């Protein structure tokens, strides 16, 4: 038991030393422009909503020594149970969300192989719903929303032009389900009188970043 713990401890120290050595290797600061592709999993917190896969792509502009803006288009889909989120009449089906994200990245380090950062931004979320029974036209739909994005990530720079990027992000959508067809502009609907759904999605992604 003690030997196993010692072996694990030694292994951890070696890994940390190796990581520190890799991190210290200086391959320059952030490049001005990057293109990125990523994919991963999404878990929606609201009751009755499942988890699914997400994918996305976009660009990143460095705006400062430790800051940059990411513009990303992403899409994911998750299964929806009947009456999910306490919404009566919502049949089992699938929710798809396409989001246009504007995220500020704030880097804790300005150079090196490993660049951790915080993510703060907003996303225009276009939410679609399709019932499982393809023969039935949907009578309800989710209302599109602007949503806050909070999270963090870590770029492991393989070279000055290529990085492997891992991110964890919360997509904080507050919306409701409306009956179709809509009869008046959405601004006339009182949101506080609706059954509010907190479709807060935890998104985990891994991707590649090509810098120029």
């Amino acid at each position: 038991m003690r030997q196993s713990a010692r072996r694990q401890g030694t292994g951890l120290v070696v890994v940390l030393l190796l990581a520190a050595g890799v991190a210290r290797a200086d391959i320059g600061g952030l490049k001005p422009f990057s293109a990125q592709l990523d994919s991963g999993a999404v878990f929606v917190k609201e009751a009755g909503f499942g988890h699914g896969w997400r994918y996305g792509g976009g660009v990143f502009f460095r705006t400062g020594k430790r800051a940059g803006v990411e513009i990303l288009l992403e899409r994911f889909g998750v299964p929806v149970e009947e009456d999910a989120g306490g919404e009566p009449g919502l049949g089992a089906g699938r929710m798809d969300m396409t989001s246009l994200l504007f995220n500020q990245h704030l880097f804790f380090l300005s150079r090196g192989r490993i660049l951790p950062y915080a993510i703060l931004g907003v996303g225009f979320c276009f939410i679609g719903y399709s019932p499982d029974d393809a023969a039935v036209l949907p009578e309800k739909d989710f209302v599109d929303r602007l949503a806050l994005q909070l999270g963090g990530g870590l770029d492991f720079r393989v070279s000055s032009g290529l990085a492997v990027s891992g991110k964890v992000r919360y997509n904080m959508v507050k919306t409701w389900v409306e009956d179709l067809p809509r009869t008046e502009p959405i601004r006339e609907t009182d949101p506080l009188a609706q059954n509010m759904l907190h479709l807060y999605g935890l998104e985990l992604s891994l991707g590649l970043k090509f810098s120029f």
Partner: protein
Amino acid sequence: MTTFSTTISTLALSLLLGHIAVGGLPVDTAASGAPRLPSFSLAAFLPGDSAPPPAQKAADPPPPPRPIRKRPLLAAAEVAGINLGVWAFLHYVGDAFYSYISWETIRDNFRDGFEWDRSRYFVNFYHHPYHGYLYFSAGRANGLNYWGSALATLGGSLMWEVVMEKYRPSINDLVTTTAGGCVYGEIGYRFSALVRKKDARGLGRIWREAVGTILDPIGGVNRLLNGRKDSDPGLPGSPDAGRILNGEVVLTGPVVTRSAELAGTRAAPLVGFTLNYGDPAGTGWSGHPFDVFSVKGRLRWGPDRPHLSLFIHGALFGKKLASRGGTSHFLGLYQHYEYYGLDTLRVCGTSFTGGWSSRFKFSPDVALTASARLGWLGLGSSDDFYADPGGDRRSYNFGTGLTSAAEVAIAAKGYEYFSVIWRHYGLYALAVSGGRAGRESWDILQGQVNVPVWEKLGVGFVVEYCGRRFDFKDYPPGSRRLVEARAFVSCQF
């Protein structure tokens, strides 16, 4: 949130006034022979360091203008960040119904265009300018001048109106946020430059940075993020900041109010202040907007709730005319933001006037200062007491028209003994958003006598008259008048 921030900033200004200590006169004021009105520098009153003696300060040559790095893109990003931050707070913490926005609401807002918004009176004419204050502060904090920061304020307000609320953009919010924000923002920036001090350390630094951040919020945040570099804008030595101010703090007991038409006599305590930044007669004018401005404010408790009044005007353009024998004259184009509030009479507006200000010296110790202004009241508003007199204060008329003002003051040995102020607003109601068609005329007259008792402390008596004549469509013409008389204790500086 806005209410809280507004209250904090108002309180901070009051606290500042309570800590003012003696500083020096502007160099060119002394050189021109202008009367030695007692002057104070805010840079001297915070703990941790001491102010230079006035004689030494007067002997120093003016610091050479130091170029400030302009960062317009960062200013724009910070303006957008302010909007997103306020929206996130309102949406996730406040759950404000108007914060539920999407691509669709933005598209609809672009398609449908502007409308008139009827939020509560205080929200529309005090909170919105404070929001504009933050945009302006972002511009100033990134090295933009007054006009660049004004553009940032307009852009920020436009973004908020079109993008960040689900309702149609409001034309009156755009005007009050931009115009009021420029006025609040510039005076906040100027005051912050009086408080912050290069090379301050320890407790003095902490106090200065904290108070400077309240006065210039985004500048304070930037200084915190970039390590409080002393080369930043907003510090003494910046080309258009860091002048001397003088003024007065007034505290009264219960105010006796009488009205010919409004029944009864009521009482309310009051605290007021006057700050004159730069010389209204033009000494020291260097051609930058708000090199000369005046802030007159007061907060009275009751009789129903606290009421704030603010009269701010600053010179945008000006020309100092040749003078001799200590007499000086100044011709200027002024920007105003004014908010006059009592329990029974409320009027406010943003305006632009042309006017002059002169100081005549009768002897080395006695001076008379007189000024007059006349101009356009761009967007004003007055309460509509015909509708919802005791409700949630959404009943008011928008208007445009003329405004004028005149002021006379007599000072001896640097102490102001006597002053008379008159303000006039001629409002033509725009009859929008349920407002009443018609016109009205406001006159506010204030006469004050002040006598020194011990050093800068004095006692005095003031009489204030507010008259309102109105002629609204479908209603008989009429008037309202209110007269107040109050004794006070004052501290001139």
